[in-house]
């Protein structure tokens, strides 16, 4: 029965954790919204990390000025660089993002103090900075508004105009620990180049976002003078894509664990069969007596099959309780939603009963076919 318990526990556990993880990520991605997609330079992750310069302010201007792709709502450029910050007797390095005002529609941060970067500040290349919450705490302490205070960033003085934060794990991870400058200032003062690390595009209608992505791809390929056989020198990914990828990975992992659990269930089933065979041997005289008082072969078969099913059913129920309890503990520790899938539970119940039938049938048939005389005389 232990094999059945382990098998069912692991299926319930991994399914619940998987569903919880998908729900968590869906929730996180929805904090960004599914009405946007991002363009990154390089045909793959490695070339992006290697600092591909395939995206530039020209691309941004092209997309911003295009009127043919009517589903485009906003185009927001992102540039980034590492900076040294020094102020209030604290010094540290941080990641600085160069952004336009409309980045606020993509990032959707909570404005704790002040305001976000404005187009006017960008146009005038003002030395202003918006701090992520953790950066603000580090330099100015908690519960203190640093607006109008000054910081030295790469040995130049910047005025703090706002503090932003995000409660989302995904967004907060980078947002709370970064700083934001007008993109013109970052490119001019920090990176010294017009290469962009990202262009985010929001759309009016998320339902046709895939078509919009295709249209943008065509436009950029034209802009980059890529031939038909050339690979894209950029990558486009939507939040929807990320969610689908997450779901695919989770499904694969779940299927893999289910397969491993299946092995455990088979082992458990063999154990049940062995127990039942021993039981048939030990109860041979009992079977003889049952036949003597009128039990037919099917009565004996039914009785032993029922016992086998009850055994695996109890194992299955125990596995379900342990699986659900384990999933609850994991959800508390990992801060992901606790989800119990009723279809998974019902499937577990069905599988444990099926194991009982499958592995109980042979011992049950052996019991049913015993000769009553041989069984009565068994020592």
């Amino acid at each position: 029965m232990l094999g059945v318990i382990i098998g069912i526990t692991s299926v319930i556990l991994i399914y619940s954790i998987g569903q919880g993880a998908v729900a968590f990520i869906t929730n996180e991605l929805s904090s960004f919204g599914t009405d946007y997609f991002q363009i990154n330079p390089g045909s793959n992750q490695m070339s992006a990390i290697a600092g591909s310069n395939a995206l530039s302010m020209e691309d941004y201007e092209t997309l911003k000025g295009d009127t043919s792709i009517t589903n485009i709502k906003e185009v927001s450029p992102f540039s980034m660089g590492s900076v040294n910050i020094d102020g209030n007797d604290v010094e540290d390095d941080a990641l600085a993002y160069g952004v336009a005002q409309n980045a606020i529609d993509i990032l959707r941060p909570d404005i704790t103090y002040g305001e976000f970067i404005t187009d006017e500040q960008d146009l005038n290349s003002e030395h202003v900075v918006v701090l992520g919450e953790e950066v603000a705490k580090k330099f100015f302490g908690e519960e203190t508004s640093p607006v109008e205070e000054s910081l030295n960033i790469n040995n130049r003085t910047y005025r703090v105009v706002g503090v932003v934060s995000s409660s989302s794990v995904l967004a907060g991870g980078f947002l709370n620990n970064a700083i934001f400058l007008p993109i013109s200032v970052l490119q001019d003062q920090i990176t010294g180049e017009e290469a962009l690390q990202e262009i985010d595009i929001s759309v009016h209608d998320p339902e046709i976002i895939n078509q919009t992505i295709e249209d943008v791809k065509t436009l950029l390929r034209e802009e980059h003078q890529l031939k038909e056989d050339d690979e894209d020198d950029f990558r486009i990914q939507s939040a929807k894509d990320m969610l689908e990828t997450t779901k695919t990975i989770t499904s694969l992992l779940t299927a893999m664990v289910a397969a491993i659990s299946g092995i455990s269930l088979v082992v458990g089933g063999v154990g049940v069969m062995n127990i039942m065979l021993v039981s048939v041997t030990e109860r041979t005289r009992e079977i003889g007596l049952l036949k003597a008082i009128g039990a037919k072969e099917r009565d004996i078969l039914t009785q032993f099959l029922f016992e086998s099913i009850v055994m695996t059913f109890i194992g299955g129920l125990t596995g379900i309780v342990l699986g659900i309890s384990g999933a609850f503990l994991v959800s508390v520790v990992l801060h992901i939603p606790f989800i119990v899938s009723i279809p998974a539970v019902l499937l577990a119940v069905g599988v444990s009963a099926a194991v009982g039938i499958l592995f109980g049938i042979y011992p049950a048939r052996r019991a049913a076919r015993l000769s009553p005389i041989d069984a009565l005389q068994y020592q």
Partner: protein
Amino acid sequence: MANREPLIQLENVKKCFPLADGEFYEALHGISLEIYEGEFVAIMGPSGSGKSTTMHILGALDVPSSGHYKLRGKDISLYTNDQLAEVRNREIGFVFQSFNLLPRITVLDNVERPMMYAGIKPTERTRRAMEALERVEIADKAENISNHISGGQIQRVAIARAIVMNPAIILADEPTGNLDTKMSEEIVALFTSLNKAGRTIVLITHEPDIAAHAKRIIRIVDGNIVSDAIHKK
């Protein structure tokens, strides 16, 4: 008796068993006997005489290799396993020497079991089981687990189970073999009482003083009936 149909008829019954070398061993050499309703018959014989084989055939646990076995006029010699099981359920009440009751369940559940296989409804089962337990004077032990009663009490419960379906015969195989003298006398007295009430009893025994309580003694030696006589007490 001459005008009545016999309850049990064995007509030239032979029984052969296959041996390892491909030959056959003939345990019964064509025995014939008739038992009428209300009789109390003891079948005696030494070990290897064929009395157990005769009991197996009478109890529909086995079928003759040749010859006929008629029970209430029906030839059951060629019955299938399921048909024999039905015969055992409805027409035969077994009392064995040992291992008479199913362990881990109550006395009442044991007596109800044959009725369960016959498809009798639960309330009717309980009523008839309690009646049978009262008949053998052990109704107060109905809720006891069967492993928790004495040897003599076990035999009483086995008798209650044997009569609960109103079978054609009560077939008792060495029922006092594991009991002391006092308990043996009680059990035999119970059989006598049941017989007086009209039950047909066939007792297999090797003990002459137990067989002496029967009204008719059949002796089997080496697969043949050597004597079949009314016993004068």
